[in-house]
């Protein structure tokens, strides 16, 4: 009964959720060595908000130190990587992820460069293919076409 009363009092004391990430429940706490690795990996995915294109793991700024501290805290409390990244996105927006999520207008960033390179390559190949038969038109169909007389002689001598 005492435990029930204590639980009820605790529930009343924390009417929202009490946890550091609202609406998310943490899992079991990870082993310390796993937590080290996970915290380090997460710090590489987060952007230091006061730096120029640096990850939180690569900065000694006040903000980066605070970020690393909070990441470690959340890892130790049993939150998943996804929950922790969502925690930061919730507060700082997608900007805080070094890799923007592949959704909405962001698809342009992910697909654009490959698409452009592919298209350019296709055009270049098409242009090269178009040029070759043009040059060969009117010449004999056997062997490669060589226009330069010096080159022709060279090839003929090499054949001997």
């Amino acid at each position, binding site marked *: 009964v005492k435990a029930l009363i204590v639980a009820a009092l605790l529930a009343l004391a924390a009417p929202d959720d009490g946890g550091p990430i609202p609406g998310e429940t943490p899992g079991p706490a990870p082993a310390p060595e796993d937590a080290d690795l996970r915290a380090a990996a997460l710090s590489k995915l987060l952007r230091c908000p006061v730096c120029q294109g640096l990850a939180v793991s690569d900065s000694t700024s006040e903000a980066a130190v605070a970020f690393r501290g909070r990441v470690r805290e959340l890892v130790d409390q049993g939150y998943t990587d996804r929950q922790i990244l969502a925690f930061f996105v919730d507060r700082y927006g997608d900007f805080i992820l070094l890799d923007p999520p592949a959704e909405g207008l962001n698809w342009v960033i992910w697909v654009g460069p490959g698409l*452009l390179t592919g298209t350019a390559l296709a055009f270049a190949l098409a242009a090269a293919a178009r040029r070759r038969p043009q040059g060969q038109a009117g010449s004999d169909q056997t062997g490669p076409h060589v226009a330069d007389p010096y080159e022709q002689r060279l090839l003929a001598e090499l054949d001997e």
Partner: protein
Amino acid sequence: VALAPEGCRVKARVGLLLVGLALVVGLVALLGSGFGKDPHRLPSTMVGKVAPDFALVDLDGAPVQLSALRGTPVVLNFWATWCMPCKAEHPLLVAAARARPDVRFFGVVYGDQPDAVRRYLAKAGTSYPHLVDPGDGVAVDYGVAGVPESFFVDRQGVIVHKQAGPLDAATLTGLLARLETP
């Protein structure tokens, strides 16, 4: 007869040129729209949300819990003594806190030593408590990227505005007016 394929080829080439031109213009426009914007000015993802609760201690050791202040508008000013714009806006906040006793003002010390803050406040003066935030944990909870940043929390505990960068007198007066609920 011989002109027909040639005309087709010219048309195709002009079309290709137009597509390329459109791509370049689009890309320049996209990059140009971001040019001149401060990349550190983050979207205010916290506006409209319930202000994250905290339990901190002020420089005199008095505990402050945000959720206990529900029903009173709150202004949270994240600042540091090493931050020049913070010092510039400090007198403004001191005067505003005196003029608006119905609003609770708090300074939240960001990346600074309590002793340095005490020394500065002894000289500059203050009219509201300053909270010590160990490890800048509360700053991360609020999405603070740099100082100064000020959050305006209404009576319901909802963040109505986040000011990134220093406040000026007119902006502060306008924001405080928004905290008044009918």
